[in-house]
C-alpha cells in the first residue's frame, strides 16, 4: 500500500530521518515506538505530505487518493473558532465524503453548536476521529493521541477504531508511547532510534525474540548473552535479552521469562538511553 524509499529529513542541520526504506501492506495495523525525538512524528508527517522529505520518496498504492487518508496529529490542531457543525460541513465538503455518522458525537453528548476550542483533549480526539471515519479511510495515521484520553473514551475510541478497520480494511500506522491498551491490536511493530527503524517485526515474532531474566541482587548473567537492557534495584536485577534463541534455554542456566508487548517496547526504549549514557 505504501512504499517508502531512501527517505531522509533534517531539521536545520540535524538529521531526523536517515535513509528509511519500508513497506506497509493493505489492512495492516502497525505500531511505531521509540524514544522521544527518534523521528516518529516526523516520519508520519512525511507520509501524509505535511512535511516534504529532504530526499527519498513515499509511494502510495495506485488509486489511493488523499481523500481516503486520515491523519490525527499529536497536536490535534483544527480551526478553533469553527463550531462542530461547521467543522463537519467543512471537512465533508473538502474530502468529498458521502455523509457523516454523528453517533459518536451523540454518545459523547457533544453540542454541535459548540466551538472546537471548547472540547476537552479526549473529546477533540474522538471528534477528529469521527471526521476521519467519514472519509472511509484506507489509511489512518495516528500520532500519539491516546495518552491524554481518559480510560472510558479510550475504550470508545478503540472500539470504533476496530469497527472502522473491519469495515474499510484500513491500514493503520500508529505512533504510541503507551502500549498496554493496544497490546493485542498491532500485527507489526517498528522501533525507531535516531531516525532509523532498528526493529521491524511481526508482533508475535517479536514476543518470541525478547525475553527477560530476573536475578537476585548478587546474581550475574553470562557475558555471551545479548543483553539489550539491564535494570537494577536493591532487591532485584532484570536483564532483557534480544535476540533470544531457543538454544539459549539449554545453553545457559537461567530462566527466560516471556514479556508482554509493552515491556518489550520499554526495553528497546530503555536500551536506547543506556547506549546514550555509555
Amino acid at each position, binding site marked *: 500500500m505504501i512504499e517508502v524509499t531512501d527517505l531522509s529529513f533534517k531539521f536545520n542541520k540535524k538529521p531526523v530521518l536517515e535513509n528509511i526504506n519500508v513497506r506497509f501492506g493493505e489492512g495492516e495495523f502497525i505500531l511505531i515506538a521509540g524514544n522521544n525525538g527518534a523521528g516518529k512524528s516526523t516520519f508520519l508527517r512525511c507520509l501524509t505530505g505535511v*512535511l*516534504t522529505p529532504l530526499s527519498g520518496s513515499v509511494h502510495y498504492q495506485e488509486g489511493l487518493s488523499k481523500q481516503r487518508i486520515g491523519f490525527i496529529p499529536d497536536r490535534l490542531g*483544527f480551526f*478553533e473558532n469553527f463550531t462542530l457543525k461547521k467543522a463537519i460541513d467543512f471537512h465533508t465538503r*473538502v474530502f468529498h465524503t458521502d455523509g457523516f455518522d454523528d453517533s459518536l458525537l451523540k454518545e459523547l453528548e457533544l453540542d454541535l453548536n459548540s466551538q472546537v476550542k471548547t472540547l476537552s483533549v479526549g473529546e477533540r480526539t474522538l471528534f477528529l476521529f469521527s471526521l476521519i471515519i467519514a472519509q472511509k479511510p484506507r489509511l489512518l495515521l495516528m500520532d500519539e493521541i491516546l495518552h491524554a484520553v481518559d480510560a472510558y473514551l479510550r475504550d470508545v475510541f478503540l472500539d470504533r477504531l476496530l469497527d472502522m478497520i473491519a469495515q474499510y480494511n484500513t491500514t493503520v500506522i500508529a505512533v504510541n508511547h503507551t502500549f498496554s491498551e493496544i497490546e493485542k491490536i498491532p500485527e507489526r511493530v517498528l522501533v525507531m532510534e535516531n531516525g532509523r527503524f532498528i526493529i521491524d517485526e511481526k508482533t508475535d515474532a517479536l514476543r518470541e525474540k525478547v525475553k527477560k531474566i530476573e536475578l537476585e541482587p548478587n546474581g550475574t548473567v553470562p557475558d555471551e548473552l545479548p543483553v539489550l537492557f539491564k535494570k537494577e534495584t536493591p532487591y532485584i536485577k532484570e536483564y532483557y535479552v534480544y535476540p533470544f534463541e531457543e538454544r539459549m534455554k539449554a545453553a545457559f542456566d537461567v530462566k527466560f521469562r516471556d514479556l508482554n508487548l509493552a515491556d518489550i517496547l520499554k526495553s528497546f526504549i530503555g536500551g536506547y538511553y543506556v547506549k546514550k549514557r555509555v
Partner: protein
Amino acid sequence: MLRKEFSEVLKQSLFFILLAVTIPFGLKIVSAYRSITYFELFFSLYQIGVLIFVMFLGNSLFLWDRKQRAEDYLLSLPYTKLRLLGIKVLPRWTTAVFFYLVFLLLYLCSGEGFPMASVFSFTYIYFSLFIIALTLSLCLENYIISAVVTLLAMAAFLWTICLIPTLLSQWLYGVDINLALENLLLMKFYFGKLPLSFIAIIACLLLPFSAAFIFSFKKIGIQPVSRFNKQYFKIFVPLLAAGVVLASLLTYSLFTPGDKTYYLTEGRRLIEWSYMAVRVYDGDSVAEIASSSFKINSILIEAGDNLYAREFNFPGDSTYFLRLDIKTPNIETVYKLEGRYISGFTGPWLFRNTIAIVEGYPGEADKMLHLIDVNTKEVKKIKLQHTSRCQVNLFGADEAGGKRFWLVDSESKPGHSVYRLWENGEKEELGTSQRFPFYVNGVLITYAKDMATLRKLVPRGITDAWAAGTAGNAGNVKTIRVGEGLIFQSYRSHELDNPPLKEIIGAIHDRNNNTKKYYSLDMENLELREMKAINDQIKQSTRRGPGWMSLFRPTPDEYYYIEYKWKNKRLDYWKIYAFNKGELTLLKELPFLGRQTKIAVCRGGIIIREPGRLNVYAFPDLRELKFKKLK
C-alpha cells in the same frame, strides 16, 4: 476551503471598512479636523489605512492557521501545495484589488490634486507592499514582527528602486548623489511622474520575493520557520542579485538626464536649469553655469539681472537661497538655512538689497525674522513674539524717516493681526484684518466684512487727492465699501520693492458657486470698478464647465487673463487673453493639451513644453522667441 478563506477575509474587510468609516467621524467630533470635509478626511485616512490593511492581508496568509496550530490539518487536506497556496492567495488578492478599485473611485470623486500621492505612485506602493507582505508571511511567526520586517523590506525595496538610477546618474553623468536622488526618482516616485515602463523595473525587484516564496512554499511544513527561511533566502538572494542587475539594465535603457526647467525673464533671457547645469540663453548665445552642487527648486524673485531662487538640499539638512547673476553669469549662495527650520519658513521677500525670511512653523507662536544683505551677506535676526501660534508672512516693506520697516501679517484662528516692524526691532501694532492685508503706494489696506480701510503709512503723491481728508475719515485713513470677501491681489508677492500702481486689482471668490469677480480700485480717486469683460468671460467659461482662471500682471500696465480647464485629470484647453482698455483680446489658445504638456507663465512670457518640444512666447504680444542654441 475557498469559501472559508473568502469568509475570513470578508470579516477582516468589514472590520477595516467599519474603522475607515467611523474614525473620520470621531476625528471630526474631536474638533481638530472640523475645517476639513468628511470626505477629505475619510479619503486621506483611507489611503493610509488601506496600505496598512493590505499589508495585514498579505502578512496574515497563514497567521490564523498557525495561531490555531491547524497547519497539520491544513497541509493534510487533499490539495497540492500550490493549489492550497492558490486558495489562500486568491481571496486576499481579490480583496486587495477591490480596495484598490475603491481607492480609484474615491480618487475620481476627489477632484483635482487632492490625493497625497498620484495614482501611479499609490499603485506601485500598494501592490508592492501587498506582494512583499504576502511573500514574507511565512518567514516570521509573530504578526507585529512580520509587519515591521515587511515595512523594512518595503523601505529597502523603495530605496533600491531609487538607488539604481541614482548610482547610474552619478556614474554616467557625475551628478551629485543627493541631487540625483531627489531629482531623478524620489520626488517623482512620491509625486507621481514615473513612466509606466518603470513597472518593468519594479517587477524585476518584486520577482525575487514572489519566486522565492512560491518555490519555498513547496517545502512548507510545521517545522520551525528557520527552515522555511533558509530555503526562502537560498532562492531569494541570487534572484535578487539578478533582479537588481536586470533592473539596472532596464533603468539604463530608460535613462534620460533629469528634467529641465525653464524661466523667461522680463529681458527675454531664457533660463534653463537641471541638476546638471544652469544655462542662460540670450538670442543666439548661451552661457552655462555648471551647478552640480546646486539644484534650483524654483525661481522666486526677479530683480533686474538677478534672479533669486530656492534650493532644497535633499535629504533635507539645509535650504539654500541662491542668487543667479544672469549677466555674468554666476550663481552664489546668499543664505543657508539649517537646523529644524529647513522647511519651516516663509519667504523669501526682497526689499532693496535685503532678503527677508521668517523662520518658524505655523504651530509655533514665536518666529525669527532673518534679514540678509545680499551684497555683504550680513545677517540680522529679529525675534517676532506672538501670543498664540500663527502663520507669519511679510506683505510690504518701505522706508520712512530714513528707517526701513517691514509689514508683518500674523494669521491665527480669529483673523489677521498686522504690525510694522522697524529695522531696529521696534514693533508697531497696526490693527487687525479679516483678510490678508495689502500694501501699495505707501498705503496699508485692511479689511472688515465688506469694507476696506486704507491707511497711509508713507507719503506718496499718488494718494494725495484722497488723503486730504473728508468727513468721517481721518486725513490718513479712508474707509470704502468693497463687497464681502474682496481681497486685493499682491502685485509681486516675493518682491516688496514695487513701483507705484495707479490701480490695484481685487477679486471676490465665491467658492460655493465656483465664480470669481474681479474689481479694480483707482488709487487716485478710490473708485472701485468691476472688470466687466473679465467677469463676463469667467461666467462664460464656468457655464462650459468648471473653468479656472487667473489674472497675471507682469508690469503695472499689463494684464493677462489666463483661462484653463481640466478634464479627466488633464488640461483640456488653455487660453491667454490680453486685457486692455476694458476689453479682452485672445492672444493664444491651446486646445486639447497632451498629458505631458507643461505651461509656465513667467515675467517675460509663457513657456510651453511637450515631450521633444519647447516653445517660448514673449509678452506683450506672445511673439515666439527662438533661441538658436537651445537643444
